[in-house]
């Protein structure tokens, strides 16, 4: 009797399986179900791609707006110090990594890579310095915003088109 019941169960399962298989083949694996993995992938993108990704859908937009994604991006472009808790709290207080990248680090890196050839060690040195310089400029921007200015102008010089003469 037990064997018959077992066989019935097995047959039922066999009947189920093709259906389930069809289901999974229809659905596929959906990345949107795993927001953490999505965030991990986003954290490896560059600034422009992050901007593009944020336009895909509401979920992606929310993920891309997380500051830790931009923190990882900033971290990759500077040598040490960007990720430690002290820096993190200061950057958060001044406006967050996303704003830091958008206003300072991004344009600064664009400028530096555009302006002529630099050796690798030069680039590293500049990348390290660019964090402190970016933070200085960023703090001035934050300070201007304290006044309630709609468009603080101190960082506009970074957005000017680069003269690649």
């Amino acid at each position, binding site marked *: 009797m037990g064997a018959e019941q077992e066989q019935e169960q097995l047959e039922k399962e066999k009947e189920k399986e093709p259906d389930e298989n069809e289901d999974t083949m229809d659905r596929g694996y959906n990345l949107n179900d795993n927001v953490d993995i999505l965030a991990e992938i986003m954290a490896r993108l560059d600034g422009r791609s992050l901007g593009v990704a944020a336009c895909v859908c509401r979920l992606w937009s929310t993920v891309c707006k997380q500051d830790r994604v931009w923190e990882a991006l900033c971290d990759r472009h500077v040598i040490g110090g960007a990720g430690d808790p002290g820096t993190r709290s*200061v950057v958060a207080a001044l406006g967050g990594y996303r704003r830091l990248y958008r206003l300072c680090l991004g344009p600064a890196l664009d400028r530096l890579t555009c302006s002529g050839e630099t050796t690798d060690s030069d680039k590293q040195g500049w990348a390290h310095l660019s964090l402190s310089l970016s933070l*200085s400029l960023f703090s001035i921007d934050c300070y201007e915003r304290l006044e309630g200015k709609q468009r603080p102008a*101190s960082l506009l010089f970074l957005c000017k088109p680069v003269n690649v003469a």
Partner: protein
Amino acid sequence: MGPYGSDSTTIASAACSGPEMDAILAGAGFGTRLSGPCNVTNASDYSLPFNPSDLTTWVDSMLTDLTSATTANLPPQPIHATWTNQICSPLNPIDHAASHVLMAQQRKEEEDSGIRLVHLLMTCADAVQRDNTGLAASLVDEMRVLLSRVNTLSGIGKVAGYFADALFRRIYTTEVPLSTSEYEVLYHQFYESCPYLKFAHFTANQAILEAFEGYDRVHVIDFSLMQGLQWPALIQALALRPGGPPFLRITGIGPPSPDGRDALREVGFKLAELARSVRVRFAFRGVAANRLDDVKPWMLQATQGEAVAVNSVLQLHRLLTDPATTPAPIDSVLEWIVGIRPKVVTVVEQEADHNKPTFIDRFTEALFYYSTMFDSLEGSRPQHQRQMALAEVYLQKEICNIVCCEGENRVERHEPLAQWQTRLANAGLHPVHLGSNAFRQASMLLTLFSDEGYCVEEVDGCLTLGWHSRPLISASAWRAPDADVSPDDSSVIASNSNNCNIIINSNHNNNNNSSNNVSGSDDNRISV
């Protein structure tokens, strides 16, 4: 070569010979552009567009050339215009070669007008120096006629326009000083449209940061607070320094606000807000004074055990006087600066010689300096036209002060770095090398600002920022000669009963401090 070539050489020889033309153009501000990166190792190797020692002879030669020309008093005939009209009118108007030549001729005409303007300016300045008001007035009129035909939107036309205007004011009117709020707006626009002030702030901050290493209580005395734009970067850098931020005190000196609002206090609140958000213990104090020599050391309340930094951005030159009158206020101010034993004194000054006793020398120097300055403003293409226009007004006010005012009213008494070095050394301060970090930071800032034109150079441990190898602003650091005060000796703390402090403690649970302070607006300002 045909008609074009021969006629252009005739026109060129009518003005002056080739190299002479180069020299005059260079002197008038048409600098030759450097190609390639500046060689930073040869710090003292910058070549000025003119040789200062030859200036007097050059001016003399121009003046003697002109005395015959001005008596004739003929406006320059546009010879080439009629010639090109003859060539162009019967032909097809879309003739590229002809339009090219037309443009070249127009440029030459403008250059000639520019040279003539410079000649006129020199003659007029000389007339003013000899108190020959009649001649000066007629020359000013002539310049105005010429200016109406020249492009005053850029280049030599614009600079000449400002100087002619300044001469006009000197002859006819008295210069009205700017109100504080107007000055602040202009200063802010100048700050944003070119890198000189940013360079000054960042370099000074770097020197201050390095001097403050190891100290737990630090005090910065700012000789000109304005909107306090220098300090957010220092606050942020102190917040991030390894070992944690110190207790930072800033004393900001500035002019008293006329309309009842306490501008210094407002800036102090904003800085305190920023410091609170990045968790730096912060205190601010405002000292309102119209002149720096009215400030006395006791107002600053420097205490034992704290590292003091004195920061002066474009302020010390206001304390100079005519060399004949002694004592100069600068000496007494330097004396008390040394007296408070600062760990670092950061001095930023214009790299120019605008305090010479004779008017014509000052005028010539200013003409060259501001030509380069305006050149750099155009070169860096500021974001808005309005911003650039206001930045130019800021410079124009300086020009007017140098040209129009005398005695006590003339405050823009710029002196070159070498003279400041002697003066500060004589007062007892020792120079501090600015270091490679400051240099790299300045170079990087310039790369961000613009790719071409600006150059940072190191001279004797000081940094200068210039345009096409003419230095325009210099930053240096000094310290008082004393045995190092131990960083741990913080036993004496400023007394709490003093109502003049605004102390906003973020990490302290000490309520005693907060109750005394942030008191009524009358108490926290010392008016002099």
